[in-house]
């Protein structure tokens, strides 16, 4: 006779089918594929190199000597700073494409010195050095590197900025970009 016993079998079959499909879905959705990253973080490398350049320029080569960066600030010698800084930024890594795109020949920078005026208690600044180039394009994002530099007296700042004549720490900030 027709009764409702078969419905239970059907419902059981449908439930089993749904469970199997769900299990297959769970298994397949956990597949991962490892793919290599496709872009070099060139901004990170530029910032790291600018930081390294400032840190190395501020390390004296022998005990008791003056560091290069202190000397440049004291004598306000932007030419030597330019040569020293670009020497670090421009070394090429023997033809590697990543190295060439991270350190192209056209690195632009702008260096500023911040000092504290003890009379007014405010922080002043003066521009220290800029990269010299004909046409400067500013499309690329810039990174910043800073270094706290000890100077033993009044630096050779341009007229209009009178810095205290005392031992002090100044902040050298360099903005770097490719352009």
């Amino acid at each position: 006779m027709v009764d409702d016993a078969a419905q239970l079998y059907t419902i059981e079959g449908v439930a089993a089918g749904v469970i199997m499909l769900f299990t297959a879905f769970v298994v397949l959705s956990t597949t991962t594929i490892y793919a290599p990253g496709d872009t070099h973080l060139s901004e990170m490398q530029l910032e790291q190199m600018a930081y390294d350049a400032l840190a190395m320029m501020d390390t004296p080569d022998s005990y008791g000597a003056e560091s290069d960066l202190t000397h440049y600030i004291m004598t306000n010698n932007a030419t030597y700073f330019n040569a020293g800084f670009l020497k670090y930024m421009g070394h090429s890594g023997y033809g590697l494409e990543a190295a060439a795109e991270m350190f192209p020949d056209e690195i632009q920078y702008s260096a500023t010195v911040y000092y504290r005026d003890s009379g007014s208690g405010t922080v002043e600044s003066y521009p220290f050095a800029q990269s010299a180039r004909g046409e400067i394009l500013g499309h690329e994002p810039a990174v910043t590197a800073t270094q706290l530099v000890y100077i033993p007296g009044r630096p050779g700042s341009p007229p209009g900025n009178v810095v205290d004549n005392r031992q002090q720490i100044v902040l050298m900030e360099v903005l770097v970009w490719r352009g």
Partner: protein
Amino acid sequence: MIPSILIGIEAQTVDYDAVAYRTGVILCEDPGSPSYPDEAWEVKEYYKKDEVDRFGLAVSRDSPGILLPEKIERFFNGTFFDEQDIQDRMLFSNLPFGPYAYYVRLHLDDGTPDKFLASGSPIPQDPYGYIRRAVKVKGEHYMTINLADPARQYELTEEAQVNDTIGYLPILFNLTELQNDEIPKIYQINPYQDQVVINITDFSTTINPINPLSSVRLVGVTLYKGYGNSLTKVAGTFSSYEDDRYLFYIGNDQKSLSGDIYPTTAAAYDDIGLVLKPAMFAYLEPLPGDTIQVNFSFQYVFDSLPPCYDVLKGNNTPNLWTYGVYYDYNVSNVTQMPFTSGELEVVIW
């Protein structure tokens, strides 16, 4: 069922630049593990190789970017550490990303050839990770004693009593004075990390004879260790571990200090050099406050008994350091070379 619901595929990227950056930081900003004041990884002998946890080339944790020459030499020595050591102790590669292929290059601005460490396979066009760090290498230091210079403070006058006179030249290391914390670690003379070089020149011309000098010979090099007035001789120092612990030169020839030595005559050589490597100080294991002394013994033979001579005065009595030369920060004794700039490049793929 819609196929896009069934199929969920994630792409997980391997960031080679991050691994290269991490490796650059490990090499440039970390002294490695274990490092001074424990027995440093660059000093460990081959059978203790597994005690090294991590490589690092920096002088100390406080001096990122300033590298130590001894660590550079051990790291770029292609035969001491093998491929598995590099993977475990520098790259920390683990499944499923590892093992990585690598290329490390150190370039110095002093004209020496670049140093390389490579896994062997060529660098692919893409993808790879790259980092470049600016570094400076700590300068080496050395002492040069010209015994013909009458201004040296250790030349004293003593009457030679017999035909065969022994004079001593002690070179002293006051370890407490050397580890002066007022001097930053990157400028310190640290015999546990740097090699110590002693050059002695013109020792056969030290004598200003009234009567002829027949010969001057170096007859012994001994090491003493101790505190205060009591220095005791350390036995077995110049045994067979030559290149790891010390290097000894007579003129330009490298010689061994073990066994019977110096069969040469006075005319054959007039300057000697002794290099003590950090492994030697690790072997000596001085206690804090100790002094290490290297004693050079010279034998003078005169043709006839001289009335008065200048000879080196130094002996094995407790007050020996009065006559010795200290290897310290005095620039007239020891020359410290300035730093050398360079760059370190790491490529990972």
